[in-house]
């Protein structure tokens, strides 16, 4: 199978997946009691039953769930993602205004995760069963175990409040400025820590496995320097499993963004998602869920392609 056909088949396979995700999410949102109009009514005793019904009808929240779903799907197929009721804004620009922030934070989190995981994983594998290896494994365990919100608050406490090295709030600067990159370190570390821990463990085990293979023994026997053996031969093969895991971690990066953006008052999609759930903003929840679904599917597709690039023995079967 050619690469082009492989991609076409995989993309086609995403359609039923996204459809299933949309049905499931829509059902879950509607199984949760309440909607934005309930909140509006709770805050405004003057709104009569008739006015409430009129508002509900205006936003298409008055029909049975299946009808609401079909309406929503029909609108989506025409490029209309619906309305964020609480602010009376169309969903698409609402998402697009926040997307760059989440991408920036996600990429930064990724960078931090890779910067921590790969050197640490290599070190732990090369120095297997030493004190350094034990320390790195404790770090990995801690990274996985620590809740994001707690780690974020602790970083704010230590580095912003005690040491005064970072601001608590994002500066009023462009997203691609030096000040903003500096600011992104704390949320990036927070979001990247859990992923780095997972990546580091995979890197370590994968590398340790490669180091025991015959081609490594042969390379050493040839008298190649250990540095060359590890970085040129072993690292490339070890990265195959890391790449696969890294794609899966895209989901956890977004999951982390939901919490981290809240803690750091970062105006991205994660924070919007929390607000959408609290306010039962169906259209916004659906849009962000689908967007995330597409992103994860694409990340996995990219991982498969990378897998083949890194290991020519792999074919698209």
């Amino acid at each position, binding site marked *: 199978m050619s690469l082009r056909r492989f991609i076409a088949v995989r993309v086609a396979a995403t359609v039923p997946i996204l459809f299933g995700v949309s049905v499931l999410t829509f059902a879950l949102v509607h199984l*949760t*009691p*309440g*909607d934005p109009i*309930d*909140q*509006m*009514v*709770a*805050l*405004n*005793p*003057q*709104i*009569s*039953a*008739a*006015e*409430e*019904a*009129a*508002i509900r*009808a205006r936003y298409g929240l*008055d029909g049975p769930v299946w009808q609401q779903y079909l309406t929503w799907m029909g609108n989506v197929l025409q490029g209309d993602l619906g309305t964020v009721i*609480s*602010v*009376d*804004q169309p969903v698409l*620009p*609402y998402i697009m*205004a*926040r997307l760059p922030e989440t991408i920036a934070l996600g990429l930064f989190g990724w960078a931090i995760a890779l910067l921590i995981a790969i050197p640490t994983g290599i070190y732990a594998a090369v120095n297997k069963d030493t004190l350094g290896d034990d320390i790195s494994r404790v770090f990995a365990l801690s990274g996985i175990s620590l809740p994001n919100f707690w780690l974020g*608050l602790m970083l*704010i*406490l230590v580095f*912003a*409040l005690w040491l*005064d090295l970072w*601001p*608590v*709030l*994002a500066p*009023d600067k462009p997203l691609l400025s030096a000040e903003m990159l500096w600011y992104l370190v704390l949320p990036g570390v927070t979001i990247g820590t859990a992923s780095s821990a997972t990546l580091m463990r995979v890197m370590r085990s994968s590398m340790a496995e490669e180091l025991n293979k015959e081609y490594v023994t042969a390379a050493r026997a040839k008298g190649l320097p250990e540095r060359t053996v590890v970085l040129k031969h072993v690292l490339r093969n070890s990265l195959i499993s890391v790449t696969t895991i890294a794609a899966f971690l895209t989901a956890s990066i977004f999951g982390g963004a939901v919490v981290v953006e*809240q*803690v*750091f*008052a970062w*105006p991205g999609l994660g*924070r*919007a998602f929390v*607000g959408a759930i*609290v*306010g*039962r903003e169906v259209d916004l929840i659906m849009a962000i869920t689908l967007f995330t679904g597409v992103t994860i599917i694409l990340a996995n597709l990219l991982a498969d392609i990378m897998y083949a690039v890194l290991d020519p023995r792999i074919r698209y079967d």
Partner: protein
Amino acid sequence: MTRRRVLKSAGAATAVMLAGCSAGSDGGGDGESEGGQSLDPVRERAAVSVDEIQDGGTLRFGLGAGIDSFDPSYSTSAPAGNVHGLVYESLITQDAAGTVYPWLAKTWERMDVQEVEDGAYEPYMVSAETDDDGNLVADDQIIIRNPEDGEVLTVNEAPDAVADGTYGIQYRAELHEGVTFHNGEEMTAEHVARSYEVLENSSISAQTFDSFLYAEAVDDYTVDIYGQEPDAEADSQLPPTVYPMEHIEEYPDRGADPRNDLTPIGTGPFEFESYEAEQRAQFSTFEDYWLDDLGLDALEWWDGPDGFPTSPVVDDITVSIVTDDATRAAALNNNEIDLTYGLTSDTYSEYRSADDYRLSVTNAGAYNFLQYPVTQSPWDDERIRRGVNQLIPRAQIADNIYNGYRNPAYTPLPELAADEGSADYDALVEELRPQTEQNTEGATELLQEAVDDLGVETPIEATIETNTSDDRVREAELIAQVMSNTEFFDISVETFEFTTFVQRILGPEYYQQGNIVLIGLSGTFNPGSFYDAVNSIDNFGQCCNFQRVDTPELDEIATEARFSVEAVEDPGFRGEQYDRVWRGLIEQAPNSYTVFGTNVSSLSTDYVGHNTYTFSGGILPYGLHDPTDQQVAYLDRE
């Protein structure tokens, strides 16, 4: 120095300590509450000396919620009021005690009040269609519905009714001349009369069109505003936010909001500058602010010191949106914001004792209440409810759970609305407190008598349901514990996420489930707000009569206390009527009011003179500058 700064600085700077809290005058729109002099709800009001006021600087305000709309006519969020108050103004303003003062209006005067007979509007009504639920609907804003005949009065027919003399109350506003909007338009009577159009069919139109009937310009600077009924609250309910023609005529049917590419334009002291989604909004001084030009003497009620600023002395405002309380507190501690409110009460002691920070506390109109399942046995017996009312440890709740930042609710009426809501508030408290103060012995007698008469098996099992707010859950648990400590009750507590909870208790069958609701609500300066929402049968199935509370005789008295000619013309009558309502509420006890809230600002001492407004939506604009209380605050970054 800007032109505005020059104007502000003109006048002798006199060293006068501004103690705030003006004394009211008399009704008829010259800054007096009709019920007499109000108590200042601000605790330990900060005072500044006029000659120490420093001009300039950027105030950084931390807002704990997103801005749902920059346009007050499209906003249902109290926190967003803090940005509305910078940009927009109305004909009147209210000081921290709720006294009404003319603002954009030079005078604000009641011209006429008359009874409106039942069916008086019917000759002007038109047929309307019904929706699937049987509700009357129309393309134009409906003012009054007549479901029996399938007819409505819309904004199109209201002028005919007024022309024939069919209305309940008429107010006249003489406007200040020379008031300009941020876009340079001069405000006229036409702007005021047509500003109601912005509200038509908005999500909060009900707040205005439940009392407003019609407005018309008499001449360039005179406008008449009519209400549907004789309404003792009309002076604060009828005046609109005033919009420029650019907004009224050219903006589409959406809020003036940067997210709609529509700039908010008002007459207020600050102009909108920029907004970054969910992050920050920025405002700057409006150089042609009308009060800088006209001077404080243009306000007929002004009797403050010479040299008092005519507008806020701070140049720019940055509103940072930080929804997480811990992060907002960290930002305040890290000197990234100067002022915020709504932090958790466990942080207050830290700010109270810190040298660089202070707290500003004001008694507010929010209240927590228990609502009993009054249609279900044994809760349909008022002795059971009165017994529980006497078990509630109000003082303990206020002191221990809310660290003293709540006030025990010994009456259903807070001191805030005492002026118009009671003929003699102190006497009322003295009379009712024995029935609401914790009295286990008295409660036991009542409960024993009730269970013996009813033959009810004890302990009576019930659940207090509330939303997942830490303090409120603790309050529910304390009440449940106190009740369960008696032989009469076995009470559990169940909590729900807010939206889930709201949807649950608004359900049409909820009242049959036999649960007790504990929830909070915000009242207003008007006494009716502490009765209607939670007791009136008209609010069953909506906010906030969840248990089908039906006290027809009290509803009638409360209606008389607001919607009658006598109530409008005679504050004494109004207070007496409300006293009857409060006594009746304690007697029948469909709800138990537990504590009244406070608003608490946490701020840096760099921001000098700030005092907190009674309602959270006014905290930022009021603190900056409010001549009604001679309130002004400035930045001292030294």
